């Protein structure tokens, strides 16, 4: 646990970068500090490893004031990743990563073995990349080396200062996914600074929104930040489509799919018309013998055809996007539904078999239920926290 207790940083020219900050960063979580430039987020980060010393207040790691530790020793136990990577141009990828293990006295061979292990972890092939120099790497590869170097001595805490800002959007998304994957494996206490609220919501377990002048506006889960911004500042900061984005945090498993709309390709037109009327649906999803969706049949059009013909011979509208109720979010389900010209989307299982279909009505009910549950749950958490205080 990293704790800020009434921490203030005032520079000699009178600028206050951080003003009486109280913040708890729980172990094993990703805490994202986000805010506009000049809000004190980077200063806050750098006070953890004493690159910046607070003017007042205390920064504690597991109850110990960092001001009481020798700075160099403290820093060897805290990983640090920066935007411009700060890789040593004169050291190979392998030796860059081995830096901290060597500093804390590992044998060269074991430090290098560890470096190769980490290259695997961050998705760099040791056989081809170990001997390269930083100038021979792409921006994304450099950033991966930076992350590997920070993790080399297995520090419990990882500080990341705008780690993905300097790479293009596609590489950035890949690196963010990688961080999420790594974190699921490593459970570090990560403090990540960014000005990109999308990134904060994507990678953060908790997000601290800073206001200009070094004040905290809100510390909450990404879902709560989108669902219940503390004030207009946070509301503006998280952006205009926060209602849609919040749906990413609600699993599509909560969606009640229609199953009587899924019908086999061997069904005759006459039976299909009956089934459609019974279900009260204008569209039926036709599935093949293997259960995979083939396309949509319009019930109204079937009457024009021969009643004995099978659906396999009917003209079908394309299936469109599908989603996985067990792994996708309501946002994915809604997106698939919006994109389909039938205003319906198909939920499939792991092997691609159609389970059921959505409709706007069904989505609306699921979204309301999820939001109510989230708000009620968060309310309870709030209350308990209030009592504990």
């Amino acid at each position: 646990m990293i704790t800020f207790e009434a921490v203030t940083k005032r520079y000699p020219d009178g600028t206050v970068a951080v003003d009486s900050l109280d913040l708890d960063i729980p172990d094993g979580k990703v805490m994202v500090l986000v805010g506009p430039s000049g809000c004190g987020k980077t200063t806050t980060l750098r006070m953890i490893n004493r690159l910046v010393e607070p003017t007042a207040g205390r920064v504690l790691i597991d109850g110990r004031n960092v001001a009481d530790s020798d700075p160099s020793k403290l820093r060897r136990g805290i990983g640090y990743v920066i935007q411009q990577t700060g890789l040593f141009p004169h050291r190979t990828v392998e030796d860059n990563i081995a830096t901290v293990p060597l500093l804390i006295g590992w044998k060269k061979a074991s430090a290098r073995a560890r470096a190769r292990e980490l290259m695997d972890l961050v998705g760099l092939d040791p056989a081809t990349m170990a001997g390269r120099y930083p100038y021979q790497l792409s921006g994304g590869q450099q950033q991966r080396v930076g992350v590997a170097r920070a993790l080399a001595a297995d520090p419990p805490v990882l500080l990341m200062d705008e780690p993905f800002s300097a790479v293009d959007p596609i590489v950035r998304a890949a690196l963010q996914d990688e961080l999420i994957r790594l974190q699921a494996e490593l459970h570090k206490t990560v403090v990540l600074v960014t000005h990109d609220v999308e990134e904060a919501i994507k990678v953060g377990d908790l997000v601290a929104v800073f206001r200009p002048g070094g004040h905290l506006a809100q510390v909450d889960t990404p879902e709560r930040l989108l669902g219940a911004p503390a004030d207009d500042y946070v509301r503006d900061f998280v952006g205009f489509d926060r209602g849609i984005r919040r749906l990413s945090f609600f699993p599509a498993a909560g969606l009640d799919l229609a199953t009587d709309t899924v019908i086999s390709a061997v069904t005759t037109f006459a039976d299909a018309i009956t089934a459609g009327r019974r279900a009260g649906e204008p569209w039926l999803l036709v599935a093949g013998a293997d259960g995979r969706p083939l396309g949509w049949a319009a019930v109204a059009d079937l009457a024009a055809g021969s009643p004995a013909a099978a659906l396999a011979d009917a003209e079908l509208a394309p299936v469109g996007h599908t989603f996985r109720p067990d792994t996708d979010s309501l946002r994915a389900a809604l997106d698939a539904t919006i994109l389909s010209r039938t205003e319906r989307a198909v939920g499939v299982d792991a092997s691609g078999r159609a389970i059921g279909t959505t409709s706007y009505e069904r989505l609306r009910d699921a979204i309301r239920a999820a939001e109510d549950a989230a708000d009620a749950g968060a309310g309870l958490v709030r209350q308990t926290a209030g009592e504990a205080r």
Partner: protein
Amino acid sequence: MQWSWIPQNWSIIWPYTLDNLLLGLVPPLIGLVISVPVGIACVAKRWLYPPVLSVASALYALPSLALFVVLIDYTGLGNLTVIIPLTLFSLCVLLPNVVDGLRSVQEPVRQAATAMGFGQLRRLVQVELPLAMPVVIAGLRIAVVSSISLASLGQLIGVSSLGYFFIDGLQRDFPTEIYVGLALTLLLALLCDVILVAARTVLTPWARGRRIAPSALTPGLPPAMGPA
């Protein structure tokens, strides 16, 4: 040009060449040993560099022959009288390169080193000095070539160098000797330069494909036109 003169006089050509080489190498090496700590101090204390640079530039402007004459009173007609002025000139060339080299280390690299737990001394030795090397070697090339060329002047006060062949050739009106001295001076300079370039390639493989800062070629005078 009398080619047969060369093999006949090999026994004197060789020692003069070696002496010239020594006079060309020792001053830059001493200059390097002095300019590294001074350069580090100038980078650490910013206010120090402008006055130090002014003094160095003023020294660079002194005619070497005048320095020889002044020094004879103190150090006599020995090697030292030549080595001291050449060392001063090397220093003038090397110091700005050491300072520029250290300053060429990018701030994120410095910051990352600190954040990983490097102390100041370790950061200097393991990160900043190695990264300054390409720029320092660029300065060393100029210093060595200048010193090799200037060393011949030592002959004017009797210090053995390839300058002997210029003076002797002139006095005896024998151009072959002058050409040989000239060719050997060029050859020595070229040889040393090739060795330094090779050293740079081996020592700083990471700098391939990177440019050396233009300031590495200061101060402005090309070596052939150096202070005489």
